[in-house]
């Protein structure tokens, strides 16, 4: 096996000319250079088991549906590690878990929960109900009370009656069922928006009829577009799950700003 020669391996490749380098030198001044990236090996002086990798999760519950949206940007300090990370796991035909926070804990937690859900199905020969996942997730998080999963979970699905169910958690397992939720990097930007357009908080008018899945998806898109404007950890794209009674779960992608 041999290597194809780089077209411009001698004398410098075409895309990196001295002309190209000049503006770069001007752009990155001494001020920018003082930012010490944490991940350049030798500068680490204490082992830090946690990292914040961004991730924003939003869920809106309806009368017979739930819409979940989660972004796909994986970041570390000021770096974007990838624009297409998956921070969600489909646990059953009617239940999705999406999580922001420390990605190493997020992936591990998702594997653990997925395993326990599969065990449940083998043991009891039925799909686990959303409220049972909710309790089990709470226990799982509490099991690491003294070395927590740095993970911010929103669990969404349909309940036993087919109503939209949204559960929101803290890192050590406290949880609550709510009509809608947002967690992670963009939560401070998104929650007030949801309070206004979904919760109708402090408004004198009333919602015109029940929220539809389509309307909820649009709210989710707007929320992420808005958050991406002001929060550097939100961006690239979102995954949108629509779980509705009597219909197979749908997953869609929606691009948002990449900068």
């Amino acid at each position, binding site marked *: 096996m041999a*290597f194809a020669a780089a077209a411009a391996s001698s004398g410098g490749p075409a895309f990196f000319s*001295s002309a190209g380098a000049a503006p770069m030198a001007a752009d990155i001044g001494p001020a920018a250079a003082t930012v010490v990236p944490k991940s350049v090996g*030798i500068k680490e002086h204490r082992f830090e088991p946690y990292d914040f990798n961004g991730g924003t999760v939003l869920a809106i519950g309806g009368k017979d549906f739930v819409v979940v949206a989660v972004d796909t940007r994986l970041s570390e300090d000021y770096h974007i590690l990838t624009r297409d990370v998956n921070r969600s796991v489909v646990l059953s035909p009617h239940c999705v878990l999406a999580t922001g926070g420390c990605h*190493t804990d997020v992936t591990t937690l998702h594997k653990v929960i997925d395993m326990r859900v599969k065990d449940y199905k083998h043991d009891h020969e039925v799909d686990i109900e959303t409220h049972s996942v909710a309790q089990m997730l709470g226990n799982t998080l509490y099991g690491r009370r003294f070395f927590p999963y740095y993970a911010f979970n929103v669990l969404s699905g349909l309940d036993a009656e087919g109503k939209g169910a949204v559960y929101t958690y803290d890192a050590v397992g406290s949880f609550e069922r709510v009509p809608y939720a947002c967690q992670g990097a963009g939560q401070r930007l998104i929650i007030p928006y949801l309070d206004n357009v979904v919760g109708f908080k402090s408004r004198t008018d009333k919602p015109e009829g029940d929220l539809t899945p389509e309307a909820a998806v649009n709210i989710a898109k707007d929320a992420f577009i808005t958050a991406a404007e002001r929060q550097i950890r939100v961006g690239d794209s979102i995954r949108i799950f629509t779980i509705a009674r009597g219909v197979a779960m749908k997953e869609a992608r929606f691009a948002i700003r990449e900068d």
Partner: protein
Amino acid sequence: MAAAAMAPKLSASSSTAKELTTHPIVTGSSVLAVKFAGGVMMASDTLASYGSMARFPDVQRLRQVSDGVIIGASGEMSDFDFAMRLLDELRVESECAEDGAELDAGEVHHYLTRVMYNRRNKFNPLWNQLVVAGTKDGKPVLGVVDQIGTAFEADFTATGFGKHMAVPQMREHWRADMTEGEARELLEGCMRVLFYRDCRTINRMQIAKVTATGSVVSPAYSLDTEWSLKSFKKEASPEDGSW
């Protein structure tokens, strides 16, 4: 940047407590990798630094796990050796089964993720950023995992200083349908910039590739450099130093 100048501490433990890797000592700098049409290509230099000292100039940081999988490592070189030993034990055990099955890149990446996470949980990490390349069902696979177990796949990636210096170039020039030659051109371009700008790099690099037909790691070689560029020639003065 003062921290960068500090020599690694080698203090003898006064207690009998177990010594953990609390900071890396002999380290490798960037690893770069890109997918191209039909495979993955990876590049790194061959330097293992001891703090700011260019201590070991001929260390292979790109290694073959099997015909179909290669790994590149940044960070602590002894931890990298240990991780490779784990993979080798796994490979030997698998070969004893004589079932013809081999771990593919996705499986190796996943395994390393679990190793890294479990070591992090013991506060005894393997201090590396590992880049795993291979193919699965004929499609290129490129995975990254770091010392706390953060794992992801990407079309192109860089570790260490390359995250700052190489990723912007990759973003500009990477295409999914790149030829092998174009991929190499991109990686060598990035390596050249890193040699110009990263103080923990030498001009002695290796390149490796994996395609559906197998993998190969090149011997070490040097890149042509150009030091007459305007920004390099700028006169240093106390007021207006070249950067």
